């Protein structure tokens, strides 16, 4: 009989690291492409067209980096759900909801980056068309707060309950508030549909930069608690296997 | 009677209410008649609002028994943001 397969700790840790990696690479790509700091929605189509026509290859390169790196969001979402599942009982709804939220988010990330790539593909087209692609991308990107918030709410709920019922909680309590804070900072983004200038426009201080700061910080905070939880999980599993005979370990694994 | 914590809370509340009425009165009088230039009385009203937030923090939010770093962080907000707001009002 085969001995039970141990936890793939390395894979879990790698997925946890995908979160911070995503933030760093994604935003670097945006900076390289000149899209961060974000261009004002109030620019005329001609000005925007000029932007895309200048240093176009640099823009394309930066956007490609952002586009490709956005896939890193997926394993990060997945590893969060593995820990939520450990916190929950027989029906891990929060793990599923978090995962579903992440799937919604990735759609926005992939779609919006490809729209910018399309805009940069033929910058000689009519300025209004370029503007439309640019608007479509940035509006979608900044306003897709709803799917993120599902992730944050699921995580918060799971951690609250886990801390109530478990003797050794998997995540510490402070991560609850980081999730609440990040979700809350996005709420004001709904107003970006109404404004082209000011702090509530999609390049505004309150609609973009403040939430983006929390958004970035969230990845690092979550990666930190994830890494600790994964290491602890691996350690607990090793201790379990050491304590029992190999045959009995199979039974343990089945119920795990 | 002052030692009774319930009485303390009510007294702080009373002080906050009185200050609110005074600020409102000053605001009514100065806001309408003075037009659009910066007004020292209104700057004081703004500053007093931040003093009120400190009172809420100290007495309502129980910062009196909190560790020093937390008390400092809160007061840093009161003083930092308060001073910035008053300065922006007066000099922008």
């Amino acid at each position, binding site marked *: 009989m085969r001995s039970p397969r141990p936890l793939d700790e390395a894979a879990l840790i790698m997925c946890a690291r995908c979160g911070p990696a995503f933030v760093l690479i994604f935003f670097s790509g945006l900076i390289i492409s000149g899209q961060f700091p974000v261009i004002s929605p109030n620019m005329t189509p001609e000005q925007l067209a000029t932007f895309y026509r200048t240093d176009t290859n640099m823009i394309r390169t930066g956007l490609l980096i952002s586009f490709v790196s956005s896939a890193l969001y997926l394993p990060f979402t997945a590893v969060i759900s593995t820990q939520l599942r450990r916190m929950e009982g027989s029906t891990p709804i929060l793990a599923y909801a978090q995962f579903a939220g992440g799937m919604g988010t990735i759609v926005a990330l992939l779609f919006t980056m490809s729209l910018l790539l399309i805009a940069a593909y033929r910058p000689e087209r009519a300025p209004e068309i370029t503007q439309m692609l640019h608007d479509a991308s940035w509006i979608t990107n900044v306003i897709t707060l709803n799917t993120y918030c599902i992730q944050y709410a699921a995580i918060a709920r799971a951690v609250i309950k886990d801390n109530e019922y478990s003797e050794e909680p998997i995540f510490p*309590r*402070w991560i609850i*508030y*980081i999730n609440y*804070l990040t979700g*809350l*900072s996005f*709420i*004001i983004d709904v*107003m970006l549909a*109404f404004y082209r200038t*000011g*702090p509530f426009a999609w390049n505004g*201080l*309150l609609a973009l930069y*403040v939430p983006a700061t929390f958004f970035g910080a969230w990845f690092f905070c979550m990666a930190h608690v994830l890494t600790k939880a994964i290491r602890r999980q691996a350690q607990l599993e090793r201790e379990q296997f050491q304590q029992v005979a190999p045959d009995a370990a199979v039974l343990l694994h089945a119920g795990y | 009677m002052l*030692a*009774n*914590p*319930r009485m*303390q*809370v*009510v007294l*702080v*509340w009373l002080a906050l*209410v009185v200050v*609110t*009425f005074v*600020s*409102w009165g*000053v*605001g*009514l009088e100065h*806001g309408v008649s003075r037009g*659009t230039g910066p007004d020292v009385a*209104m700057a004081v*009203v703004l500053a007093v*609002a*931040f003093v*009120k*937030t400190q009172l*809420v*923090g100290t007495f*309502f*939010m*129980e910062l*009196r*028994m*909190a*560790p020093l770093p*937390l008390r400092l*962080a*809160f007061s840093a*907000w009161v003083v930092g*943001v308060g001073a*910035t*707001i008053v300065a*922006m*009002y007066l000099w*922008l």
Partner: protein
Amino acid sequence: MAGDSQRLATITGSLAATTRAHHVPGEVGIWIFVLSDMLLEFSTIFGYFLHDRAANPSQFAQGRATLSQQLGLVNTLILLTSSMFVVLGIQALRDKDRSRAARMFVWARSLGLAFVALKVLEYGAKFHVGLTPVTNSFYMFYFVATGLHLFHVLIGLIVLTYVVNGARAAQPRPNELRSAEVGATFWHMVDLIWIVLFPLLYLVA
């Protein structure tokens, strides 16, 4: 005689609680939340408001004139009083008088509901005369700042309901006092923000 010493014990118990040092009200996480929210969300709105006001002084003065200072005053008093009830509620929980605590938190919540009702009426009156968040810069700040604050009030009402239900339950939840303190801290923040918003929007502009 027995009643006197019991009352004395209650008062000294509360006194001891209030002079206890190095107790983080609630827990550190809620303070991270509250201070970040105050600093990065609302304070930036305050600053931006004054910045735009400097560019449009007469527009802002005109806008302010359409706001009811009386309503602003009443709303401030409502929130101050509801915060007071929250403090009394926490004290009651410490005194182990959970039914009194529930009453205090219910009062606080009712005042919060009154705030929401008045805000709805206030917004309604503005929409009725065609003033909306896109009318001009002043109204953008007025609606978005008070709107974001109102959103916090609504969350606060949910939080207070959770605290009320806990105080009414036959058996206290584990960590009931800590949860109540977390909720109280959030509610006081809501009060705090309005204390600054009121003079900024209604008196000064």
